[in-house]
């Protein structure tokens, strides 16, 4: 089954088994192994990528659903020596240990910051009409779809805090 997606700015046409998930397409057919498979059930967040700028669990999504979509993976954000600001903040704050959830955490952070900028609400949002203030509670809530078993949560919060600025 032929599907064309734009991955990290480059159009790629794949002719693969229709059962192929977006995650497996990226990993097994495009060699982009930065996105990780932790559960294959959309429960851990390690496979998080950005599709048309929105974060999704790529393991829960079939490639064929994404014809024409723009996909950004961890490899598309930055490279060693030319890190994306979120990658740089994670490195400096030691917001990772084993590193397996890290690509998902970082893609999720990029998506989350945009969601907040666009005024998307979360469970922690008290005033739905006001601009979103990224309090610590907001960040924790919005990042809770990405499990880190090493439990780098305090450092992940600090890294995102660096990017989101201090909010009362």
């Amino acid at each position, binding site marked *: 089954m032929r599907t064309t997606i734009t991955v990290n700015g480059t159009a790629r046409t794949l002719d693969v088994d229709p059962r192929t998930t977006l995650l497996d397409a990226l990993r097994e057919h495009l060699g982009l192994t930065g996105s990780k498979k*932790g559960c294959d059930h959309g429960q851990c967040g390690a496979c998080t990528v950005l599709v048309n700028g929105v974060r999704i669990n790529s393991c829960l999504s079939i490639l064929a659903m994404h014809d024409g979509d723009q996909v950004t993976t961890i490899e598309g954000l930055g490279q060693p020596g030319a890190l994306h600001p979120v990658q*740089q903040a994670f490195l400096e704050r030691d917001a990772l240990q084993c*590193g397996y959830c890290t690509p998902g955490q970082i893609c999720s952070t990029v998506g989350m910051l945009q969601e907040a900028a666009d005024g998307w609400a979360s469970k922690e949002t008290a005033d739905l009409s006001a601009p979103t203030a990224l309090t610590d509670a907001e960040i924790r809530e919005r990042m809770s779809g990405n499990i880190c078993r090493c439990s780098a949560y305090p450092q992940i919060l600090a890294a995102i805090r660096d990017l989101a600025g201090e909010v009362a």
Partner: protein
Amino acid sequence: MTSVRDWAEPNPVTENRGGVIGKGVDRYEGALKVTGTAPYAYDTVAPSPPAIGVLVTATIPRGRVTSVDTAAAEAAPGVQLVWTHLNVPAQAPRGTRANPRSQRASNPALGSDRVEYYGQSVAFVVADTFENARAAAELVKVAYAAEPAVVDFMASFDQATLPPDEEDVHIGDFHGAFAAAPVTIDETYFSPIQNHVQMEPCATIAWWEGDKVTVHTSIQMVKGGQHALAETLAIPSSDVHLLTRYIGGGFGGKGQPYDDLILSALAARALKRPVKVAYTRQQMFHGTIHRPAVDMRVRLGAEPNGRLTAFAVEATTHCARAATFTEHAANFSRNLYAAPNRLTGHRLVRMDLPHAGPMRAPGEAPGMLSLECAMDELAEKLGLDPIELRIRNEPDIDPETGKPFSIRQLVRCMTEGAQRFGWERRNPVPGQVRDGRWMVGMGMAAAIRGNFLLPAKAGVRIDAGGIITLRQGMTDIGTGTYTILAQITAETLGVPLGHVRVEIGDSDFPPAPGSGGQFGAATAGSAAFEAGMNLRRALTELAVGDPNSPLYGGPAEYVTFENGVIAIENRSETLAALVGRAAPDGIYVEGSISPAADARDYSQHTYGAHFAEVGVNQVTGEVRLRKMFGVFAAGRILNAKTAKSQITGGMIWGVGTALTEVNAVDPRFGSFVNQDMAEYLAPVHADIVDLDAMFLDEADDKANPMGIKGVGELGIAGAGAAIANAIYNATGVRLRDYPMTPDKVLAGLMAKGL
């Protein structure tokens, strides 16, 4: 033989002139991890495209495979092989150790028709794609003859026996002293089955070149994996090249090889092409080890002044019928508090569950959940502050062995922590503090975890450009091994960190025992230090013996290494200049570390104190962490940043232990009811609020030449008990059954009429 006295001599690491030791430098491999370019086992690019293997696992806890219908699977698209116990290639019988020096024996996959636990591999399918392999695996039909299985731990205590080669430890007369004690506690605590839930499922990719197999796998012990594969395949270990460069979490669960390793190697040989195999998340829960449940009875007898006179911790736990693993949940208590009359020991029930095994701080992690609550209960009975009770029972020497402590800063951990946490805000009368619907309370607990040093080697090479490469068959499971090995090497040789490369996770490199038991940094690091010292000696000889060196003829004892420069006072040259001229092929030396003969004359541990504040929702029984702080003493800290990540990670495991983590057994199948990450509740980001930790200044010169100790497991020890004690302080409800989920909390509140 080395003595701890030798270790007390100053050395480049303890002098730390370059300031690299202790500094919170960024993780060595961090840039690769944040860009997704660190290749984990399943990410590894093989010489040619791999076939994909998928496991089929048993759906009964005990019995026999009576028939397997593989016809549909074999006929499915893309399928290359289907194996069961009937046609899997020959492997050495389980337990075979053809080479007596092998660290692990043969462990065949699909070795017989016997089923010993739910989730055991019973068939294996390899196909050209993952989708085809997974679909074909669904077509394998397995029939079983089930046999009666023991899967209910609480109902099986009558089958408990002493673990192999183990006796209870009696000191003084516990029973007499307990009967005579004016104040007593006699309570039983329960810690359930827990699971590692490493983010990366076990995975291997294997390929052969002639008689030699290369495997990239996710394992904490390089040599153990290499030897297990060699023994199982009945080939020399020199024909197994095992690599494990990046590991997506281990926590003890990847200390041993699993069927992905064996079957990928066998299938790659049979198909003459690379094969890769990963466990599914569900297979991880059953097919790999878990932390067993532990039932712990604690009896404390004390004088009215709080001095313990009678002390007993007895733990009953379980392991797989064919195994010998014991969760030594009482061991920690042998070194913690003074009491003249003591009883500690373990009982083991053999069950038909998946295998129990080590999980982060085996022993301490569940064990401290009992005693550290019992001490809280005793403190209240005595009208003493829990910290004061512990101080009154602080031993001068090891209460069990009578040996001196190498260093023990437990009291400072507690007093420093109390001050920084604001312990004085705690109302000692439970159930007094409200914040709307939330009942608020504080608790504390002590932490202790042993420190170990194992034999290890390391190799270090300097090239003509002055770049130094440390090589070791060690692993980094997220602990920071790469980073601390780089720091130790840089400081030992007086070069900037940027001049150091670290290569680990390869069975061709000098062996280290791997990551486990929080012995990794001390063990691998000490070997790296010794290798670095040997390179210093070699470079010194080279310089003073080279007529073209400004150091020529100089006194070797005055040679210094600083900032990449070797010098005798004002005569100096860069290491790059020296090696480039005098040894253009580079210099490679090795070093090794072994435990000192007299190290066992000391009682050696890491210590800490946890402080927690929780809110308990009076309507729902939900417990929310509000604040947590820990103070720890764990020798010299090599990297402020990675050590703190380790210790706070451990504390967060304690939060999960106290509040959410449990694998419930389905008695019908001997399976875990919750076998995925939505239902096994490891802490998520929203669960962790205001959590921080600090280390006390410490150097333990009885530990190793650098005075460092482990930090990977200390953080979880006692952490859950601090939360349990905070729940009591908030509500007056004493729960002794972990995890303290809303149903249990609510039942307690209702029983109190709250």
